[in-house]
């Protein structure tokens, strides 16, 4: 074993990159669930975002416009889920699962002509001054811009839920939709907006894979990241801060286990492979799971 071949600075730096797609998808789903809706279609929205972002950025040559396209694509797919569950009152679990299957198929269809094409490159930001700080600079301040966009979204969601009136309304709708309705809040409208936000974030997460992480379009490329995002929301007790911790923990242990393998660590590979799941679950469960939003997954109709 040769642990000296692992460079801790590079390790921490790649942790932030590895965690970003899951973090983006999870923060969107967190808002959706805080509004009382369980959308299991994260995987489908991610992969749709991945292909939309890829197509848009290839045809415009700009990764930034690609990310916008990905967010729009994810939001459109999510609004399909929203219409079905909020207005046609379909079962949220079944509809969410169907959304995943639909998204996987739709993305494969849309991506037909884009296999083997390379995405326009998305250069890392070398933030002046901050990026030059020894040790911390390369870890924190020399990434592609989406890493910071992701962090900003998490921060914004935290502030929105904690301090803003709109955030309070969203939480009220999620905790008890009948009471919120009685107070005159538009339950369906709030939920639709939350669902579309969730779709947009999932789309960004997917596009991060197809435009930055891989960067290429391949069918089924999210390979289960959406399900991990869903699990992290629950383990994080629906709190943005813990969600960030969970995503970084998962990303970090994933990268660490690959590093340990490459360094010839004497631990059996099977244990290393399960480590990210195990570590994330254990830490977040020990931190004590909070209570789920009161109306989570329940169908709302004003007459009931």
């Amino acid at each position, binding site marked *: 074993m040769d642990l000296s071949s692992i460079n801790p600075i590079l390790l921490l730096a790649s942790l932030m990159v590895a965690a970003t797609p899951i973090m983006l998808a999870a923060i969107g789903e967190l808002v959706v669930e805080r509004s009382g809706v369980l959308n299991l279609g994260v995987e489908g929205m991610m992969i749709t975002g991945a292909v939309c972002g890829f197509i848009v950025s290839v045809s415009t040559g700009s990764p930034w416009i690609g990310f916008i396209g990905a967010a729009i694509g994810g939001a459109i797919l999510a609004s399909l889920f929203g219409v079905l569950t909020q207005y046609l009152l379909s079962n949220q679990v079944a509809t969410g699962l169907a959304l995943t299957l639909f998204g996987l198929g739709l993305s494969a269809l849309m991506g037909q002509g884009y296999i083997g094409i390379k995405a326009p490159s998305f250069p890392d930001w070398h933030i002046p001054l901050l990026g030059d700080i020894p040790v911390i600079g390369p870890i924190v301040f020399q990434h592609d811009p989406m890493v910071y966009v992701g962090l900003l979204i998490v921060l914004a969601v935290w502030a929105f839920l904690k301090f803003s009136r709109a955030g309070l309304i969203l939480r009220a709708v999620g905790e008890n939709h009948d009471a919120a309705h009685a107070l005159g809040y538009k339950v369906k409208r709030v939920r639709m907006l939350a669902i579309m936000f969730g779709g947009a974030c999932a789309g960004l997460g997917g596009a991060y894979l197809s435009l930055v992480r891989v960067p290429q379009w391949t069918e089924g490329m999210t390979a289960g990241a959406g399900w991990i995002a869903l699990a992290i929301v629950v383990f994080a007790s629906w709190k943005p801060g813990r969600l960030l911790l969970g995503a970084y923990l998962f990303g970090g242990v994933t990268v660490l286990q*690959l590093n340990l393998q490459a360094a010839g660590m004497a631990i059996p590979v099977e244990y290393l492979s399960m480590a990210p799941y195990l570590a994330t679950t254990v830490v977040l469960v020990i931190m004590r799971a909070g209570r789920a939003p009161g109306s989570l997954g329940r169908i709302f109709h004003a007459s009931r």
Partner: protein
Amino acid sequence: MMKSLLTGATFALGLTTAAFAQDETTKVGFIYVGPVGDGGWTYEHNQGRLAVEEHFGDAVETVFVESVPEGPDAERVMTQMALDGADLIFSTSFGFMDPTINVAGKFPDVKFEHATGYKQADNVSVYSARFYEGRAVQGHIAGQMTESNVIGYIASFPIPEVIRGINAAYLQAKAVNPDVEFKIVWAYTWFDPAKEAEAATVLIEQGADVILQHTDSTAPQAAAQAAGNVATFGQASDMAEFGPYPRVSSIIDNWSPYYIARTQAVIDGTWESTSTWDGIAPGMVGIGEITDSVPAEIKASAEAMIESIRSGEMHPFTGPINKQDGSVWLAEGETASDYGDDGLAGMNFYVEGIVGDVPQ
């Protein structure tokens, strides 16, 4: 839950496409472990299917189901294909082995062909390619290309096929560069672009300047390209879009001749259960163009090696070779046997010099 639903969906797809079967045509089914657009393993099997369609025209109808999980779900997909009147079914992943045997037991009149496995039955043939011959060529090039003397290897699952590949590449790399070191990462997946990209990045960060992959996506190629000075090899498919650098050569699986021959055998009624294991010589394993990024003398010696493997002059596993623990595997001049104790088919050990353990 998602898996079974997914299969339910693919299952329904199989039903609808199969409904148009006609009796006079021979029907050939394929089940794939990944999507046909993976650009690697499944892509090449699908190319084989398309070649069958083109060769036989209207005489043969093909159906396929993609992204079938390895395990019991595969059994249901194959059962449905057989019920829908398939005459010949190709199951194209190692993990479909037991499901294939089970389904074949229920449909004695349907012929089955299982790729890369070792369980045969009266109506189940097995076929595989000697990918290790291609791996030997890769090792020969990689050992000379590397300047850091660290070669990264993204392995998938610890099955004999993958371990053979590691050993074959290592032996040839060592032969041309005694200082070479292999860093091996087990990804435990055939196809997960994000994970493959991460594995490649980790290997590059730890000093590897040549990456060999036994996973199916092109993500490691893209990671190497981003790093700039890292050479790679295409896996299963040519992956030529990443040439001339980082992708300097590739192993191409060419299933078309085999699929056409076996379909012909079913049409003629001459099909028998066989075990086929073909390499470079019959063309089942192709070596993609060695690009000009490889220095001319290395390219020439690699091409000479391909020729001598083709002619049978050279066997990639020729003694003296010791196992990792130092015990003798092959004596001077001895070549590895295919089957039996310590045969290639069941290889589960590293050769001497490789660091680390084979996951058990």
